[in-house]
């Protein structure tokens, strides 16, 4: 009997370890031989822990499971939590899984399983190509930075590849601090070799010999799995003489998700933003040419090399090519990870895929792109999911996280939180971010007390932060604030407090 129980953080947070232990105990009690695989998550968080049992070569799902549901798995009768074949579920059938093809499917720490599911085909192909050919393949795929900035990955690689330098680096930004995002975490926990392969290909393309994965400390499972995977890859010769890598752990600073802060942190310094230029591509880690890419950007490279740039580029719309792993979160009925070609409208995502809110109340707003992303009202639900399309509506797709909020949400409080968060997490280097965020909290508190004269000050302050900040923390905090104000003005028009 072959059974899969996810080791993914979300599954574990909902009791997967207890379910796995119960399966082992029940198998022992019944004298049944069970092969228990701890896989990644399929991304259907509302069904976690999602247990899969192989029946006639087909994986059948059961969820959400509790330890009490385990004994019935071993009985012939129909299980109350039975979902049928997992691949046939609507959530799975609607997706185009390129980057996440193996996540939830394979044993994350089995290199044999990885190879059997197409792993290392991209690296094998890259080894037979020149640096320029690899860079061209990535450029032609249309892949853009999935961390949020959307910069063409191939162009960045070309800069590093052609930069003079005796030592170059590939740095993976796995400091996924945005609320509503967990694609990096799921990929690292569910298919770590995919990221390693992507970084090895980047190393070949750029002439880099050393890679670092900077993982946030809030992700203990991802740190453990990635560390183990690096060790296995090194022992198998996937990593080694030509390209090797290390896992580094952050220390709870949100701003270190910004690439220059991350580089400072990696160098053992305060995670303070660096002014650009010089670009990290020319003077990055230790002053050497450095690629800094998000986990999903790098993990999308193996499939691009394996299947060719054209295959990847055929998906998407406009200048947003390929697929994007949507992370649907917050007050959501069906939340989780859904990889799909760019181009679905926000309404299709919120209503058709996510099924609206968990509370059953109407959706009031959706924040797209994490804490620095804009709040979208239902009136803008016809916006297609793409970099330029969201930009045209004064928003951004960021790392493709979506937070649904129901009609009980006070948008003034959400705006205040954005400023408060910026104040807590500001690195302090530039004044608009350091001081502006604190003034922003105060100004929103004035509005909350019914002082409407604070409104133009808030607008002006946001403008200053947007134009004057060094990085996206101060520069994009105005997105959630101004979108809340623009689309939900009623929440900001408070009556003077009765006490006055």
């Amino acid at each position: 009997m072959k059974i899969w129980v996810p080791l993914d953080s979300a599954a574990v947070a909902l009791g997967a370890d207890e379910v796995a232990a119960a399966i082992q105990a029940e198998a022992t009690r019944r004298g049944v031989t069970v092969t228990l695989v701890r896989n990644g998550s399929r991304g259907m968080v509302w069904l976690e822990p999602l247990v899969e049992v192989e029946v006639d070569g087909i994986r059948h799902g059961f969820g959400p499971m509790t330890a009490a549901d385990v004994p019935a798995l071993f009985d012939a009768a129909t299980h109350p939590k039975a979902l049928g074949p997992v691949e046939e579920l609507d959530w799975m059938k609607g997706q185009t899984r390129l980057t996440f093809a193996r996540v939830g499917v394979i044993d994350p720490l089995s290199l044999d399983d990885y190879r059997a599911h197409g792993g290392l085909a991209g690296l094998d192909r890259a080894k037979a190509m020149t640096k320029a050919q690899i860079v061209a393949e990535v450029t032609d795929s249309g892949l853009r930075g999935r961390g949020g900035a959307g910069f063409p990955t191939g162009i960045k690689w070309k800069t590093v590849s052609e930069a003079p330098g005796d030592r170059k680096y590939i740095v993976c930004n796995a400091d996924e601090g945005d609320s509503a995002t967990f694609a990096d975490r799921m990929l690292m926990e569910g298919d770590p070799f995919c990221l390693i392969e992507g970084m090895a290909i980047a190393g070949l393309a750029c002439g880099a010999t050393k890679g670092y994965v900077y993982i946030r400390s809030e992700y203990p499972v991802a740190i453990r799995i990635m560390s183990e995977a690096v060790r296995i890859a090194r022992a198998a010769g996937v990593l080694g003489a030509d390209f090797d890598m290390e896992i580094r752990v952050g220390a709870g600073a949100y701003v270190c998700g910004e690439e220059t802060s991350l580089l400072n942190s990696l160098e053992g310094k305060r995670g303070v933003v660096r002014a650009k230029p010089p670009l990290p591509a020319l003077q990055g880690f230790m002053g050497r040419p450095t690629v800094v890419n998000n986990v999903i950007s790098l993990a999308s490279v193996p499939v691009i090399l394996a299947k060719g740039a054209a295959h990847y580029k055929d998906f998407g719309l406009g200048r947003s090519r390929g697929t994007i792993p949507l992370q649907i979160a917050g007050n959501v009925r069906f939340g989780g990870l859904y990889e799909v070609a760019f181009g679905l409208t926000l309404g299709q995502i919120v209503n058709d895929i996510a099924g609206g809110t968990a509370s059953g109340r109407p959706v009031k707003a959706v924040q797209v792109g994490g804490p620095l992303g804009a709040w979208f009202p239902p009136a803008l639900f016809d916006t297609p999911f793409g970099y330029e399309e969201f930009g045209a509506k004064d928003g951004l797709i960021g790392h493709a996280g979506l937070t649904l909020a129901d009609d009980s949400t006070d948008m003034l409080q959400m705006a205040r939180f954005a400023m408060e968060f910026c104040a807590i997490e500001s690195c302090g280097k530039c004044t608009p971010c350091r001081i502006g965020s604190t003034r922003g909290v105060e100004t929103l508190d004035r509005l909350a007390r019914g002082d409407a004269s604070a409104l133009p000050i808030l607008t002006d302050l946001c403008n200053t932060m947007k134009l004057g900040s060094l990085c996206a923390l101060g520069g994009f905090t105005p997105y959630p604030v101004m979108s809340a104000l623009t689309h939900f003005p009623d929440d900001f028009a408070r009556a003077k407090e009765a006490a006055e």
Partner: protein
Amino acid sequence: MLDSADLESRLQPILDAHRGMEGSLLPILHAVQEAFGHVPEAALPMIAADLGISKAEAHGVMTFYHDFRARPAGRHVLKLCRAEACQTMGADALADAVKAKLGLDWHETSADGAVTLEPVFCLGLCACGPAAMVDGQLVGRAGADALVAKVKA
């Protein structure tokens, strides 16, 4: 209180283990905190001397990051996510309830040293909020009573 000879004898192997590493200060601070439960102030000059940086630089790095503690935490550390996705699922109400039950505000440790309460901004459990972490163990759809029971155990 650690005496300096004891501190040095436990610190030296950590420093030796990180020698030759590029940008080793964060890994060293993590290892020190793992060993001591916090980063003792007296360790900073020793680390600084070993790395050839000033004490001010070492102090500046240590205090920049939320993770590093100047004092030991309680026997249990309860972290509650405060970020947007969890807020939409009642994280603020959960935090209020937990604070009331424990009689603690953020960053405080109970008088008996049993529990430290800390905010965290995102555990990546955004589709099963509100999320919490108890001594490194992740909790989704967290409830105040169950969390408090874990740290009182």
